[in-house]
């Protein structure tokens, strides 16, 4: 009897502790404050003497070598250390950077006048030869060569130390944009030749920040370059802390352990917005998420089946569940908003299971279509798969889930073995042609990165012509036609244009993100 009482008391105690612990986590939502008053500045803010910023980033950078970067956080860090010839402003306009001025001489020839007196971090002055060296080097590196393909490697000319003439192999409409990507950063020839294998521990650029240290798995630290050619950075030091766990990044920004946190879970947006110590910045970036149909697979080669699956999908519900209303925008075409040549009014495949059934019947399927959904096995994707499974069951399509780990997934997709697959594609130079080419040109099947593996001579022709068409209007017309074709072909289900999220401490000012997901840290400062 006595022991029974003891056990009861024990259970009570344990439960009390449990609630005491979990109860704590519920409180922050209670202190609601009026929306609208947030972030309203008094107009007379005093600049703080705090000059070290800690940023929680979501993964380990790949490299400090600009030619080896293709994920946004690595590009962001590298672009603080290095400069490119030209750059984007926050509105995606092309602005001069290391090239003070530039002009197009003929269809394929461009002349760049370099800024004088620009010093690399090792004290060397920027010369035209560094530019040529950098572009040639980028052409030999696996990741960056995608951006140098159009450049004629034999066509460089350096009339003097501050002038570079670059030729493209054929007319290339997006040439200026391509020079803005961090892969084509200008490196110091001497330093790079001396320490080719050591670029990671000693990257030498001209950027507003100098590389300080990189502790794998922990942080990358950069320091202000006091001899910067432009406006010197306001921060003395930026520490990028690698915190792969998204909930940990949220906790860090909430606890004030970091001044900024990147890539946050959409479910936390509301709570972060309610927190007056935090400013949550959500901005469009040049990404599109979609569910790709691999057209080389038998069942999915039929346009009617692809259209039927579009009709069978209640994409609005899926988007709201996966990314929340705050976290993403409805997608209507593969080209994200803010990019020239985007088709603004395509008639969407609205949710219509009846029509889907009709189309499937027409295509010869009678409740017997089996398709597999191949995806990177994480919670978001699994949920997506399960929702699709439910929705498609209503039209008689059996969807099997095939979660894979990243390595296996890439191999699978590069060999075009998948059927249906969720994909995120980036428009890394903010130009429609570059993205559409990758997605729909027949030369980019498999390893090229296309997951629809679509072949249509008309699309190929349009894309190739657009690429060499210098007239903007003509070009955009062609891009719109491509979008019409691929939309009619229903090669994918548009999922969303996801917002990029950054949570900043409320004392952070001067945050000007660029839609390519890059952030310029040199303009950031703190106020009291």
């Amino acid at each position: 009897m006595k022991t029974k009482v003891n056990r009861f008391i024990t259970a009570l105690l344990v439960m009390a502790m449990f609630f005491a612990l979990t109860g704590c986590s519920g409180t922050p939502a209670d202190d609601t404050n009026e929306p609208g008053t947030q972030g309203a500045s008094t107009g007379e803010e005093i600049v703080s003497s705090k000059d070290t910023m800690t940023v929680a980033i979501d993964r380990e950078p790949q490299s400090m070598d600009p030619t080896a970067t293709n994920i946004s956080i690595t590009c962001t860090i590298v672009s603080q250390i290095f400069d490119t010839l030209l750059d984007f402003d926050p509105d995606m306009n092309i602005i001069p950077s290391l090239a003070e001025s530039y002009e197009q001489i003929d269809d394929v020839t461009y002349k760049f006048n370099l800024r004088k007196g620009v010093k690399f971090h090792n004290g060397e002055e920027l010369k035209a030869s560094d530019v040529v060296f950098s572009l040639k080097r980028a052409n030999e590196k696996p990741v960056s060569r995608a951006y140098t393909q159009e450049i004629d490697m034999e066509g460089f000319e350096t009339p003097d130390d501050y002038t570079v003439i670059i030729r493209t192999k054929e007319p290339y409409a997006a040439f200026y944009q391509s020079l803005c990507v961090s892969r084509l950063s200008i490196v110091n020839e001497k330093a790079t030749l001396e320490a080719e294998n050591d670029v990671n521990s000693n990257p030498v650029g001209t950027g507003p920040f100098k590389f300080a240290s990189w502790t794998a798995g922990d942080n990358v630290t950069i320091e202000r370059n006091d001899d910067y050619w432009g406006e010197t950075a306001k921060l003395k030091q930026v520490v990028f802390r690698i915190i792969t766990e998204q909930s940990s990044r949220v906790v860090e920004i909430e606890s004030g352990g970091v001044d900024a946190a990147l890539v946050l879970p959409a479910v936390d947006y509301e709570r972060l917005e309610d927190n007056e110590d935090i400013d949550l910045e959500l901005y469009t970036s040049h990404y599109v998420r979609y569910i790709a149909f691999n057209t080389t697979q038998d069942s999915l080669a039929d346009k009617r089946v692809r259209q039927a699956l579009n009709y069978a999908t209640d994409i609005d519900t899926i988007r709201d569940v996966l990314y929340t209303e705050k976290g993403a925008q409805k997608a209507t075409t593969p080209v994200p908003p803010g990019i020239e040549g985007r088709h603004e009014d395509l008639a969407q495949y609205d949710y219509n299971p009846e029509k889907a059934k009709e189309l499937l019947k027409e295509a010869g399927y009678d409740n017997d279509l089996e398709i597999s959904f191949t995806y990177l096995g994480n919670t978001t994707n699994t949920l997506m798969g399960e929702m699709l499974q439910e929705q498609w069951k209503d039209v008689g399509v059996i969807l099997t889930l095939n979660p894979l780990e990243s390595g296996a997934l890439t191999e699978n997709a590069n060999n075009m073995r998948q059927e249906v697959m969720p994909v995120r594609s980036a428009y890394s130079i903010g130009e429609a042609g570059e993205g559409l080419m990758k997605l729909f040109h027949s030369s980019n099947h498999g390893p090229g990165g296309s997951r629809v593996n679509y072949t249509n001579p008309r699309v190929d022709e349009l894309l190739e012509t657009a690429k060499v068409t210098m007239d903007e209007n003509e070009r955009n017309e062609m891009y719109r036609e491509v979008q019409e074709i691929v939309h009619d072909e229903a090669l994918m289900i548009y999922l969303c244009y996801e917002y990029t999220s950054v949570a900043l401490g409320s004392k952070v000012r001067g945050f000007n993100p660029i839609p390519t997901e890059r952030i310029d840290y040199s303009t950031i400062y703190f106020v009291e």
Partner: protein
Amino acid sequence: MLKYIIRRVLMLIPVMLGVSLVVFTLMYITPGNPAEILLGEEGGSKEAIELLEEEMGLNDPYIVRFGRFIWNLVSKGDLGTCYATRQPVSQRIAQTFPNTLKLAGLSVGLAVVIGVVLGIVSAVKQYSIFDNVAMALAMLGTSMPNFWQGLLLMILFSIHLQWLPASGFSSFKHMILPAVTIGTSSAAVIARMTRSSMLEVIRQDYISTARAKGQSEIVVILRHALKNALIPIITTVGIRFGVMMGGAVLTESIFAIPGIGKMMVDAIKARNYPVVQGGVLVIALAFSVVNLIVDILYAFADPRLKSQYR
């Protein structure tokens, strides 16, 4: 004893070779291509992949690659170069392993103190309220996922109380939360093991003998009972510590600790073969050393076992 230790150390050589072979082969037959992965989700061109494969030496046959790995290891002590950061693997391990070791030492130390004390008191006061509460907590400790517990601790101590930093591993303050997170679950296991082991010992006649001598209860428990109950406790602690040598992946992730566990998981995902091979070797070696230490401790804990160590 010394001879025994030398023999055990020598036995590590074939073990390490075997481990290398197994890991190498497993990585070889696992689908996924490091070059493709390095080029990212969006893929690269065929020639870009080929270029990288050449650079990584992936085009050579299995035997050549394994031979090269072993030869470099034996002749130069070189574990290869990390595909991702281009650092020597040994350097990456040197950066991560000490963190893992610190975390393991701290958490297991904490677990031993809490676990053994709780276990002893529970055993001595069997069926008391203390015993029931302690064992219920132990149950909670073992069943509560580290991941969740870590987040709760972070929310409580970093956001609400603002006493401790939420993540990172640069100072002792940073180590407290992760050590507690891992420590509690280990403490729970150790407490249960200590309790059952002590209960068994306390019923032995020699405990009554010690009491009949007029010895005080605390000395009876600590000198007579605990020392006899030590073997299973050492085993449990050893296993816990040994497992920790492989890192605590989830805890390392949520507390953003650059430990070997997270390094390994990332490396496996990226098919970063040199890091995986080097890492497994080091983990296996550390595990073997922990085992050896445990075996040696047995001899000190129980003289009956000493004669077996020849």
